[in-house]
């Protein structure tokens, strides 16, 4: 771990805060609009045949939405990297072990 901030650097973190919450209301609404648009696109797969692109496109859109919320709404993009490390460690482990476990059931070969 390299995120160790020593004692005497703590006062400087007041300036971090300005960055942390730097996104404007307008920005949040833009993000929400993009999210809404992607959701609409996702739902459209139910009505329109995407052919072989169906599964990959849905998964990609899911991942994009996921990371947009995490990065902007949850501020991970602007916040201290330690928060990202902690959260992504859990996410990475979860994806890793459960995908591996499902693979032993030949889940992805069906």
């Amino acid at each position, binding site marked *: 771990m390299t*995120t*160790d*901030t*020593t*004692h005497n*650097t*703590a006062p*400087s*973190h007041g300036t*971090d805060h300005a960055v942390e*919450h730097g*996104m404007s*209301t307008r920005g*949040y*609404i833009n*993000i*929400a609009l993009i*999210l*809404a648009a992607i*959701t609409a696109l*996702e*739902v459209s*797969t*139910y009505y329109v045949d995407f052919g072989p692109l169906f*599964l990959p496109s*849905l*998964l990609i*859109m*899911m991942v994009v*939405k*996921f990371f947009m*919320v*995490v990065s*902007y*709404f*949850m501020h991970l993009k602007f916040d*201290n990297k*330690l*928060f990202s490390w*902690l*959260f*992504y*460690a*859990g*996410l990475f*482990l*979860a*994806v890793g*072990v*459960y995908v591996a*476990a*499902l693979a032993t*059931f030949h*889940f992805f070969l069906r």
Partner: protein
Amino acid sequence: MLRPATVMRLGHHMADTATHEAHVTSTGLSNVKLGMWLFLGSECLLFGGLISTYMLYRGRVSNGPTPEQIYDIPFTSVSSFVLLMSSLTMVLAVAAAHKKDDRGTNLWLTVTALLGATFVGGQVYEFTAFYNEGLGFTTSLFGSSFYTLTGFHGVHVTVGIIMLIALVAINKRSRVPGSKSETVEMIGLYWHFVDIVWIIIFTLVYLIPV
């Protein structure tokens, strides 16, 4: 030698020590926020397990309806959209709290709680409809794992709503503007997490057929 008498847990020392000593953490980050992110990292493993169980069992319908037969995609799309938008209102509440705008904070928190309640209401409606169509908790593996996964998510949303309402109540009694801004931020993180779990559930459970 330090006199034991000076070791007090008394409030009138709180102000000066709090602003000087207690606030300085080794990383410069808030304890509560670190704790919340750790908790959310942990929750990934919880929902991962429930989602995996559902993925493994969704096609195993020995009895009763299959997913395709009962999912109402247009309805669920609307409630998903509602939950997604509650993330926007939540983030606006957090922004207002940071500006010490208590009125705005309370407004957006209330809207968020209402959107969340709409989502939960939709879920209750959906469960009832599914039950009437023959999918009970004990009907099939699909039923058991579907209700467990979405039920756990629903409970998380409900807990979030309770926290939002409680926060509005506490905020209204507070005489100090922005005094709860960190609490707002923490509940915000929790709320967004519940939202991203639903983003995954919506795709994996509802949109991708067996």
